[in-house]
């Protein structure tokens, strides 16, 4: 399925299961620094926000990459780094509105979510439903529906 990892920050608990299992799956190493998804935390108020590549329609990272290392995988739609070509210049990090790419501490090249070939491991391990793998159009539909729930409750109880 071509889709994206949709984020529901209200449900995130900062358990890091997504980060650790991502790093194990990709690099055989349990380390949040090797994860393609990173949770941003505001611990004082309990606010957590998983940040992951959204596979933009016109990715700034692809446009800016000087070595054409940022590429889209047609089968999944994931935008990833070809590490054989990447020189680790970090341009994609600066260009991305979310700074979704990170530097892999082992290869020193950038890395982003590759959707695990279409079946993201992080989603399977998120037991709080803070991240889900959905078709792109569903992100807006789901958000609209969640918002409408409030209205429904007010009108129908």
């Amino acid at each position, binding site marked *: 399925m071509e889709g994206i990892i949709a984020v529901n920050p209200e449900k995130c*608990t900062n*358990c890091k*299961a997504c980060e650790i299992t991502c790093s194990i799956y990709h690099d055989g190493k*349990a380390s*949040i620094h090797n994860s393609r998804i990173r949770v941003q935390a505001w*611990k*004082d108020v309990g606010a957590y926000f998983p940040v992951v590549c959204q596979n933009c329609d016109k990715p700034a990272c692809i446009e800016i990459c000087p070595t054409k290392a940022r590429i889209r995988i047609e089968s999944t739609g994931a935008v990833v780094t070809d590490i054989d070509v990447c020189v680790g210049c970090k341009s994609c990090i600066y260009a991305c509105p979310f700074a979704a790419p990170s530097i892999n*501490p082992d290869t020193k090249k950038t890395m982003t979510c590759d959707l695990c070939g279409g079946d993201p*491991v992080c989603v399977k391990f998120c*037991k709080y439903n803070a991240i889900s793998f959905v078709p792109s159009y569903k992100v807006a539909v789901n958000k609209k529906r969640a918002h409408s729930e409030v209205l429904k409750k007010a009108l129908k109880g």
Partner: protein
Amino acid sequence: MSLPLKWSRLILDMKEKKSYIENIENEVQEYIGGKGLNLYYLNHVSMDEDIAVISTGPLVGTGFPCASFSYISKYDKKLGYPVTSCFGGGFGLSMKMAGFVQIVLKGKSKGLLYVFVDNEKVSFHEASALKDKNALLTDTYIREELDDRDIETISIGNPPVDFLDHAILFSSGNWPINRFGFGKDFIEKGLKAIGIRGDKGFNIEAKDKFLGYISNLFRKISEDNIVKTIKNKGSLAFLDKKNVYGFPSNIPEEISGKTYLKFFEAGREACPSCPIGCGKFTNINGIASSSGPLFEEVLFLAAHMKEKKLDTILMEAIRMRRECIDPFILFTEYRDAIAKIHNIEIEERYNTFKVKGMPLSFDPRRLIDLSLYCAFTIQDYDYFQLCIGMDAPQEDAFNKENRATSLKKILIIKTLSDMLGICPLPISRVPVITVEDLKEGFKILFGDEVALEVKAKGLVDMERKMGHFSKMDDMLDDTLYEVPTEYGDMAGKYLDRSMWEDTLNRFYEMMEWDSQGRPQR
């Protein structure tokens, strides 16, 4: 075959402001981690040295579910034996990522300091600006000053001087380390906080097998009915239809999870790799209030708030309680202090465990804790079933053999979890993770089949020897034999003394201890 556990010990000398790193590969082979490493270390240093030692477990940081726990221990001169407090939060994970499985604190600084451990690099920072900050503000300050959101801390807040003996520490700013007053040890060492971060990871060779294995465990834990209830309703206490916890109100609307979720829950939090997520951010009347796993207390206070219209006082109460008081040992004193300060009357209805003012959960040997208290007084048969996972009919469950077996079973798995770094919640209170689960996970990760139960038994024996514990220490308080229990199936009855002694004798046989409960080896 030796285990590939190549972690190190970091020694922080507060007096000299210096640090040392030691390889402890050999110790890890025998004592595995966590409480095992702590007690081994304390057993080999002079009791006169004021040392506190923190260890985490081999499963922490690997992704194994609920593996996030660390343990702080010291030789308690007042009690005369080593004591340990366990804690969750992200500190253990960061210790492992920095390359350490143990941190030793020794010596006393002249001024107040905080220590920052950045992998092998250690720096000592002047901390007078943190003197009046609570633990959460201290945690935030250190992250901001060092400009790194991945730093994890343990720190002491700002307890009143009168309560210093019982001051507690916090991990990650809000996960309490609340037994045996380790906050006082920090203050005496001139140590406000330890911040730690690391870049190391843990290589997992059989990654596909491990991910498959923990995927099943994550599912098993998440689908457990009790875990679902904790997630959906907020607290184990909400399972308590008989109110054995002695909540201040029997009015369901005041104590229900629905009420909590609707009015008080402001956010949730989980320790690393935990699919349960018992952490809560509770907000009362728009005032940022309390966070951490002790949400039962917050709820208790919330129920009181409505009853007494004490919101501002109780906000102070939450703060004070969480900053300085071990909720299990000093509730009465705390309550009296609050009552005196605010010139109010607070009802005593939360103290379910009335054992000469010292609840069994305080028992330092952890042989008898809340679970076992419930089991052995048969206060709540359902809870007993949960604790031991026993399917036997009620009349069989409480015979001597089954009681002794369950006592050994709980003791071994709890000790094992204390060595490996597993949260006690899914081990004993909601027994979802079994010894077999731990052994299998350990084997996949470390490639060796270790007789983990034997290691756990060895730690129980060592702790018992270090504390010179014997049968005398295992006898319950007379109150339990004389005062009828108030709640549950045994309401109106009390514990049979001879039944308890028979159980203990059989338990000693199973543990290969002598008739006085002393380990032979």
